C-alpha cells in the first residue's frame, strides 16, 4: 500500500475518533476496523493523541445523584471514594500559555463548582430558595475563562467575571448573545475581556430567553457593526445551567 493510501486510512481513523465522519462512512470504517488490526491500532493511537485534549478541561464535579444512579444500575452500594485523589491533568514542563490554562482551570473549577452547585460566590448570593442561571465560557487554547451568573432566574442583571485578560484585535469586540433552543438569538452585550468583575444588563427579550435549554453565544464582531443578530465569527457556545437554592 502506498504512503498516500496509508495516510488516508490513518486520517480516516483520526476522523473516526474525532467523530467527523458521516454516519455511513463511520459505519463502513467500523466494519473495516473489525477485520483489520492495523486500523484498530490506528484508532487506538488517535484516541491516545486526541485524548489529551479531554484532560485539558477544568474539572467539574458531577452531582451526587449520578453515582447513586450508577450504583443502582450495577446493584452496588459502595459510596464514592475519597475526593482528594483526583489526578493532575499535567505532569510535565509546560509552556507559558499552558500554565495560564491550568491556572485559569483551577480557578474555574472552584468558582464554577460554587456557582453551579450551591456555593456562595457572586452577586445576590444571599437569596435563599431561588433559582439562578450560571454558565462558564472557557477558551481552551489560552485558558481564559468567564464565569457568568444571574442574581435570580428572573434577574435583569448578569454578573460576569473575567478571570484574566483576553486579547481582542483593535476594532473588534466580543459580543455575547443568548440563543434559545429554537435558534432565536438576543444580544446580551459586549463581553468584557479585561480581568475583573462586571454587571451586564439584560434586555427584556434576553432575560426571557435565559432558560436552561438556551445557550450563550459569543462572537467576535466589528466594534462598529450594528448590534442585533450574530454577525461575526462565533468563538464560543456554552450551555446555561440552572442552579437552585
Amino acid at each position: 500500500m502506498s504512503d498516500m493510501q496509508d495516510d488516508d486510512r490513518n486520517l480516516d481513523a483520526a476522523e473516526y475518533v474525532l467523530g467527523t465522519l458521516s454516519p455511513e462512512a463511520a459505519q463502513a470504517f467500523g466494519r473495516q476496523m473489525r477485520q483489520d488490526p492495523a486500523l484498530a491500532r490506528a484508532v487506538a493511537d488517535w484516541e491516545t493523541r486526541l485524548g489529551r485534549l479531554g484532560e485539558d478541561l477544568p474539572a467539574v464535579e458531577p452531582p451526587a445523584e449520578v453515582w447513586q444512579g450508577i450504583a443502582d444500575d450495577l446493584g452496588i452500594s459502595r459510596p464514592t471514594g475519597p475526593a482528594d485523589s483526583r489526578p493532575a491533568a499535567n505532569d510535565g514542563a509546560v509552556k507559558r500559555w499552558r500554565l495560564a490554562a491550568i491556572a485559569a482551570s483551577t480557578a474555574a473549577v472552584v468558582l464554577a463548582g460554587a456557582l453551579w452547585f450551591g456555593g456562595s460566590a457572586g452577586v445576590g448570593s444571599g437569596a435563599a430558595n431561588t433559582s439562578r442561571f450560571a454558565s462558564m465560557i472557557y477558551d481552551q487554547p489560552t485558558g481564559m475563562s468567564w464565569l457568568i451568573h444571574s442574581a435570580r432566574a428572573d434577574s435583569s442583571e448578569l454578573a460576569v467575571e473575567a478571570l484574566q485578560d483576553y486579547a481582542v484585535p483593535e476594532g473588534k469586540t466580543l459580543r455575547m448573545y443568548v440563543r434559545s433552543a429554537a435558534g432565536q438569538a438576543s444580544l446580551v452585550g459586549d463581553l468584557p475581556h479585561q480581568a475583573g468583575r462586571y454587571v451586564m444588563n439584560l434586555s427584556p427579550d434576553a432575560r426571557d430567553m435565559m432558560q436552561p435549554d438556551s445557550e450563550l453565544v459569543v462572537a467576535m464582531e466589528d466594534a462598529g457593526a450594528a448590534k442585533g443578530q450574530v454577525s461575526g465569527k462565533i468563538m464560543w457556545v456554552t450551555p446555561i445551567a440552572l442552579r437552585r437554592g
Partner: protein
Amino acid sequence: MAEREQLEAWLAATARGDEQAFGQLYSATSSQLYSLLLRILRSPERAQDALQDAYVRIWQKAHTYAPERGAPLTWLLSIARYRALDMLRRKQPEVAMPEEPDRVATLLEDEQSLSPLEENENQQSLSAINACLGDLSDEQRQCVLLAYYEGLTHQELAERMDAPLGTVKSWIRRGLLRLRDCLAEEATS
C-alpha cells in the same frame, strides 16, 4: 504510587469486581469526564446521563483496559466521549460509536508489539499536544478543537465557520496530519 499507577490499580481491581476501587476510580476521575461531557452535550442533564452510562460501561469493560495502550484517564475519556457522540447522533443509530473502544481493545489484546506512539506515551506530556496545536493554522486548530470538544460534524463545522464543506474537510485532514507528524517529532526529540 504515581497517579497513573494508582488509576491502573483501581481499574485492575474494578475488573476483579472490587466495588470500593470502582468508587475510588469514580471519585478520582468523574469530574474530568463530566467536564468533557458537559462541553460536548451542552446540557447538565444529558451530561449526567452520559456519565452514568459511561461508568456502567467502565465497570463492565474494565478487564479490556490494556495499560500499554495508553493512560487510564485517556481510556476513560474515550469511553465517555464515544457515549456523548452517540447521544448527539441518536437520530442516526446506525453509527456504532460506543462499541468501538472495546472492539479496539479486544483486537489489540493479542498483539505483542507496541507502536512508536505507545512506546513513547509515558514520556509524552500534555505540553506536546498544546505545542503542536499551536503549529496548526487557526482554521485547522479551530476545526479540530470544535470537533473534539463539541462533537461537530463536517457539515456543522462548515456552518459554524461559515466555510464551504470541502474546505472544512481539507482543514481537518491537513490539521490532523500535521498534528500527528508534529507529535511524532515531539516524541523523538
